[in-house]
């Protein structure tokens, strides 16, 4: 099988999802940097790989994929027998499907907007807009309450194993934990324990180390 190339940036949360997956699976890959500050993700060359002009893009021989959660799903299936399973023991475990969607539709929209305002904008010299933050924070708290209830009954979100559903949260949780919003995680014992557990995984530590290499 041809080598894997990931076109993206080490600080992109979506790209980090894919790096985490590759490290969990112990699969070699080549990182092809995309300079987003220079608008490279809107260049013709990149658009040919992802017509939506978003990172990451996955390349393996003739196969091109985009959308981080489609890429991780493909990797998990193609390399099912390598590294961490990232799926539940029962192959058609429905809870894995549910909690992957929950991350994508309940957690991510709120967490990524908060991270954008509080963490990313200042890095690029833009001003945080306090307007949406209060409402977003209220929504985050409601989502974390549901997570707290779930994690009091299940070691990880989908089942008792670490899966894609947990892994997909890592990039945004990593950023949230560097803000005042971490208090909402710290004050929920099961969520707090789950965050401590998943952020300590060696594969995730490697993803963070990528940022230092560039």
């Amino acid at each position: 099988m041809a080598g894997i190339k990931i076109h993206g940036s080490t600080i992109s949360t979506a790209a980090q999802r894919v790096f985490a997956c590759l490290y969990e699976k112990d699969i070699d890959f080549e990182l092809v940097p995309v300079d987003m500050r220079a608008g490279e993700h809107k260049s013709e060359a990149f658009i040919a790989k992802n017509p939506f002009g978003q990172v990451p893009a996955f390349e393996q021989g003739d196969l091109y994929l985009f959308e981080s959660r489609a890429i991780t799903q493909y990797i998990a299936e193609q390399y099912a027998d390598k590294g961490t399973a990232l799926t539940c023991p029962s192959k058609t475990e429905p809870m894995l499907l549910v909690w992957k969607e929950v991350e994508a539709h309940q957690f991510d929209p709120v967490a990524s907007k908060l991270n954008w305002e509080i963490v990313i904008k200042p890095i690029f010299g833009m001003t945080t807009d306090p307007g949406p933050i209060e409402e977003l924070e209220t929504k985050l708290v409601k989502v974390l309450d549901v997570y707290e209830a779930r994690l009091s009954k299940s070691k990880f979100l989908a089942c008792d194993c670490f899966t894609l559903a947990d892994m997909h949260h890592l990039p945004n949780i990593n950023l949230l934990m560097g803000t005042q919003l971490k208090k909402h995680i710290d004050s929920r014992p099961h969520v707090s324990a789950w965050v401590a557990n998943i952020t300590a995984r060696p594969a995730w530590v490697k993803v963070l180390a990528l940022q230092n290499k560039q």
Partner: protein
Amino acid sequence: MVVKVYGPAYGSTKRVLVCLVEKGIDFETVPVDLIKGEHKQPDYLALQPFGAVPVIQDGDCTLYESRAIIRYYAEKYKDQGTDLLGKTIEERGLVEQWVEVEAHNYHPPIYTLTLQILFASKMGFTADENLIKESEGKLGKVMDLYEERLSKSKYLAGDFFSPADLSNLPFTQRLVSEMGKEYMIRQRKHVSAWWDDISTRPSWLKVKDLL
């Protein structure tokens, strides 16, 4: 055992119903009135803690998130009814890619249009004309990308009908019928042909008017 599906009147639920019909799986529907706030009642939250539709009950199994439910039935009943997931892992990768595109790029603006144009007065707020204009602009850009894709591929993921196409049905139907924006589809030759194909599938015709 018959699958119980809550909230059949709503777009997200109709995605699931189309899938069940394609797979030849029997179901019964349970109406949920979002305007009356039935989705925020304790009985409903016990099934779907985020208070959204749909949720399904299949024996002991309770599932929510429409695209999760679709993937579950498409996999579990792979050998029954329409094969929705492709023949190889690579084809499945493309299905997932285009489902993600619908979920993250197509759905947000079309959902905003649905709420603003069709539900504002029912839900007691004033429609935001700027937001409507902005959302139509965003949706148009995604449709341009669909147009490009469909000029090279019969369906979004490849030469087979999949959840990537299916997921677009309910809200796009509202766009062309109730929201009066059929021109967005007709202005784009390949999107137009694709729309005529998928919107006349027996499975869609069976569920589109369910309440």
